[in-house]
């Protein structure tokens, strides 16, 4: 369920059966989920934007492209949005393909609404973790950009594990100046000690 102040998570339903689409939209809407409906994979891909977040609930057998194919097409466009595959056939090979392509769940119709909601919630949790991680990274990058050029040089040497005197020798400045720079860096990056500083730098470089 969407939390205030965040990008809303949407359930994208792709099913060729109008009754299934309509009933899912009604049921999920009443459950507090935002939904968007598509009759086939092609119209989904036309509308798709890599910035979408939430979860795709796609039927396995669609006219034209199948739900599993749609998933791999979305992946190739660089989106990690989670997929839940639903089917009225329940064939094992298709399920295997879906899981290999990292679908969150593979649900047979007719399904229990609790089962579907559990799958969607799992997908949303994954999605939320992904969004949070991305935000954290963005914040860190922003902090790093506040450092001056000299401070970046000192940080690079510190991350290599050099002491103040050694850094001073490498950069041709006095150890005292290095100490001042280091204190400023730690203030700007909001870390309390050298260990945290190194951890921060490594995390951002990733």
């Amino acid at each position: 369920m969407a939390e205030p102040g965040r990008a809303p998570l949407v359930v994208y339903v792709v099913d060729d059966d109008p009754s299934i689409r309509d009933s899912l939209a009604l049921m999920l809407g009443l459950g507090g989920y935002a939904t968007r409906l598509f009759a086939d994979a092609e119209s989904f891909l036309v509308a798709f934007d890599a910035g979408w977040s939430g979860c795709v609930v796609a039927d396995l057998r669609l006219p034209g492209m199948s739900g599993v194919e749609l998933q791999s097409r979305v992946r190739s466009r660089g989106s990690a949005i989670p997929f839940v595959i639903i089917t009225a056939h329940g064939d094992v090979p298709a399920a295997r393909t879906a899981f290999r392509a990292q679908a969150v769940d593979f649900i047979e119709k007719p399904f229990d609404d609790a089962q579907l909601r559990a799958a969607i919630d799992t997908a949303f949790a994954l999605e939320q973790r992904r969004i949070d991680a991305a935000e954290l990274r963005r914040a860190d990058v922003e902090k790093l950009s506040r450092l001056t050029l000299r401070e970046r040089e000192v940080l690079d040497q510190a991350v290599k594990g050099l002491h103040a005197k050694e850094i001073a020798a490498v950069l041709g400045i006095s150890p005292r100046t290095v100490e001042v720079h280091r204190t400023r860096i730690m203030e700007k990056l909001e870390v309390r000690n050298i260990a945290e500083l190194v951890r921060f730098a490594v995390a951002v470089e990733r």
Partner: protein
Amino acid sequence: MKVLRYLRDAAVFAPCYLLLDWVSYIHPLGAFNITPWNPQPALAIAWMLLGGLGHAPAVFLTIILADGVIRNFPAGYGVTALASLALAAGYAAIAWALREHLRPHADLRSLRQLTLFVAVVAAGTVLVAAGFVGVLHAAGALAPGTALSGWLRFWVGDAVGVLVTAPLLLFASDAQRRSELRALARRGETYVQVGLVAATLWLIFAGLGGDPSHHFYLLFLPLIWIAIRSGMAGAIIAIAIVQAGVVLGIHHRALQTLPTIELQALVAALTLTALYLGVTVEERERAAESLKESLRLAAAGEMAGAIAHEVNQPLTALANYGRAGQMLLEAGRHAELAGVIGHMLAEAQRAAEVVRRLRDLFRHGTTRLERVPVAELLEAARRAGTGRLSVAAADDLPDVWVDRLQIELVLRNLVANAAEAAAAHAAGAEVALTAERRDARHLRIVVSDNGPGIGPAEAGRVFEPFISGKPSGMGLGLAVSRAIAEAHGGTLEARPASHGEFHLVLPFHSHG
């Protein structure tokens, strides 16, 4: 009762044996039954093969009797008894070996069966000939220097006699093979083939003149045609005609000395060629048939998947709307309920429509009725069954008027269900198929197993659609089986009993 039946069988066997022995007592060596054509051992072997080795004493006595009646004990009583014992023991041994290797169906259905049959007969008759001629030789009954040629003549006579006649007898005793023979008799082509064989025989023995064995090769041509076109049944009939023609030809030209042994060896070669060709043709046909059958089953699986899909779609929407209705109710948004309930009704209607369409499909559409012999339906079910499956049909059942594919599907489905139900039985699953007349117009096929059976309460429930959770989805389940039976104007019922029992009733074919 047992004794009476034994005596009755023996009373039929003995005259037949005597008749064959008398007819085939041609070109003997000395006064003994060392002739180039001995069909009577085939009778003895077939009788012991099908009826059991308990008949061996009757065979022994009959052989003595025949020697007395036809040849007036040429070697004296003691030697005749000993020689007859050698024959009876030898034939019993052949029957025993065939019984061991050809069971449960001695109908020469496969290359392997035929090869075993030929090998056992060839080896067995060598020993029998050695025993018989050896006894006569040891008793000094044979002219000096004839023991070896006598042994060869006896062997060829016996081997050809059995190879030609035993398959005929085995076929006559097998219901499936009998129906094949009857089908041959109904075909015009058969009479052309028989005519060609007869004409060729005439050419060889009379038309072309000279030594018949020089032109014998001509017979291979019609025999090859017959074996390829009509399989084993045709081959066996054709060989019997050739043998009869050769014997008649020998009689006809009895005044001249004919190389009868050579002729009989040629008959043996012809027989082996025709039998092997026939069985190969049949095996190929069966392979093609089983391929078609598996394709048919795959189609049934596809169909089951399609049906599941069609029914699951409205059910899913129905469940979703139902859940939405609950939520609206909980939220007190009663005004919006009417619309949701309208959707639910529409979806229920849609599901009902799918089921109705399905029923129509079986009632009209793809159903193609034809006249089918009951034995063929049972045979299809028997071949599809695994494990212990017995099939029995009442005599003279009329043909049924059914869609063969659909009824075979139903029978296979029932047999598979029965085997599964009885799988846990301590002594192993046993399934029995019995076909009988229910009344003047209907056939009843009972499929029973030694499983725990079905209680009265469950007897109706097992037909509820999509109850069976079998992963392989053997066919379409009992629900569709019953729909098929009813589409044929028949019924399918589960009988409450202490063992599993299903009754499938189908109408007989009735035209006019």
